[in-house]
């Protein structure tokens, strides 16, 4: 059984929260009679500064259609909070979608870098460079004692949230997530569902991140998250070995059924799709479903396909809005194709 480290720690994300000293925070700014002018000035300055260094596409949230905005939310490039502030908000997104800078979300600036695979230090290096560029546009709200000032004190100090998305089918299906959550809280860390705060876990994916943002350096925060991730990886791998040993024919049957349905179904709802792809990934990791390609490559393709098959992403691929049933048919057809392309050997 060839189970790699990155089959557990799937992706890395660093987010920095920043505000400008001379403007009210977004929730207050939006109520000001000069909100639009002030927001435009902010967006214009940041856009000029960033685009002088590298290419970013500017999205004025107020002019986005609902479908386009939802498409970007589904791809984790903007948030619902940014849409809530659509009168004053914007986003700057890099062509490869690895960097997103949200303007006037909960804070004036939410900068994030996302990468497939596990490398928090690389993610931090990249986003801190972007942060340095933005810091040259307008003076940040910064206090010698409290650090970067944020709208909510839960983000005060570094304003940094370092998170790693982890695929934990064995730990979660064996009912051990509570143990991890308790341990993480003790370390100033937290575990959330796939889409961040308040969301449930989809497809056995969990986000591990720091809760404390003040009183630790960025390096200390990264190192705390890394230590936890490494322990969880070992825990998950041990539990996978147990799961495979104890699972017998029932476990094999479950993953093969998932492959069978994903390869042949005619209608596929989002919830069922997510559950089946988690079983499929497990089947690949346990060697029940073979492929000549590298395991990481196949898993990455499955994960990219999951994002592409979210409702607004389907509508965009299709070129027009579809009903829910039409989307389910589209998702089924595309998934059948992806399964064929992967040349999985049973």
């Amino acid at each position, binding site marked *: 059984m060839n189970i790699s480290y990155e089959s557990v720690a799937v992706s890395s994300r660093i987010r920095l929260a920043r505000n400008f000293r001379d403007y009210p925070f977004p929730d207050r700014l939006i109520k000001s009679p000069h909100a639009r002018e002030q927001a435009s000035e902010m967006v214009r300055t940041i856009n000029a500064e960033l685009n002088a260094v590298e290419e970013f596409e500017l999205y004025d949230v107020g002019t986005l259609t609902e479908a386009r905005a939802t498409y970007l939310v589904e791809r984790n490039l903007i948030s619902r909070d940014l849409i809530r502030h659509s009168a004053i908000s914007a986003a700057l997104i890099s062509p490869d979608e690895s960097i997103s800078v949200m303007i006037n979300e909960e804070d004036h600036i939410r900068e994030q870098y996302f990468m497939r695979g596990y490398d928090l230090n690389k993610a931090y290096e990249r986003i801190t460079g972007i942060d340095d560029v933005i*810091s040259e546009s307008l003076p940040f709200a910064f206090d010698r004692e409290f650090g970067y000032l944020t709208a909510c*004190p839960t983000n005060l100090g570094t304003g940094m949230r370092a998170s790693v998305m982890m695929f934990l089918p064995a730990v979660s299906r064996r009912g051990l997530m509570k143990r991890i959550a308790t341990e993480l809280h003790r370390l100033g860390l937290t575990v959330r569902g796939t889409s961040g705060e308040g969301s449930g876990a989809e497809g056995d994916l969990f986000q591990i991140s720091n*809760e404390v*943002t003040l009183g630790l*350096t960025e390096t200390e925060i990264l190192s705390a998250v890394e230590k936890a991730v490494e322990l969880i990886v070992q825990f998950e791998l041990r539990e996978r070995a147990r799961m495979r040993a104890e699972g017998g024919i029932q476990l094999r049957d479950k993953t093969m059924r998932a492959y069978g349905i994903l390869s042949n179904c005619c209608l596929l709802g989002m919830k069922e799709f997510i559950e089946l792809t988690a079983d499929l990934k497990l089947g690949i990791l346990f060697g029940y479903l073979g492929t000549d390609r590298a395991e990481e490559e196949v898993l990455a393709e499955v994960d990219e396909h999951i994002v592409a098959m979210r409702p607004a992403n389907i509508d965009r691929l299709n070129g027009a809005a579809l009903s829910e049933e039409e989307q389910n048919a589209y998702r089924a057809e595309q998934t059948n194709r992806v399964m064929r392309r992967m040349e999985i050997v049973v």
Partner: protein
Amino acid sequence: MLCAMCGNDQARVYTRRTESGETKLYLCPDCYRRFMSGKASDTKNVRRACPSCGTTLDEFRKTGYLGCADCYSAFREELIPTIRVLQGRLYHTGKDPVRALGDEQAELEEELADAQKTGDKFLEQRIRYRLSVIHRLLSGGDE
């Protein structure tokens, strides 16, 4: 784990819901009661407003959000117990944009002296421009 506020008694985990989401409080029952009743800080001035944006302490307690950077100065004393509870610490030790700019300024001043010695007018001009940007940022945007 000890109470994040008094540091003496064993903490329990309390979940507090605000408009900005859920927050876990690691407090002993006594400090939790004081914190929730607002007695952990000075509650006499809850109607006092931030001179810059008008946000009141009451509004912050209700929503969990501050209105602007100056709210941190206006409500500093009242905020300290809340920050201590949320973060467990009070002093920032991470990245510092002012310090970083200060370091860059010192390096550029040395480079400027070198450029003047070698008579490289183009480099001198570039360094002077960058120094003027840093000066503007350090002085808070006032020319």
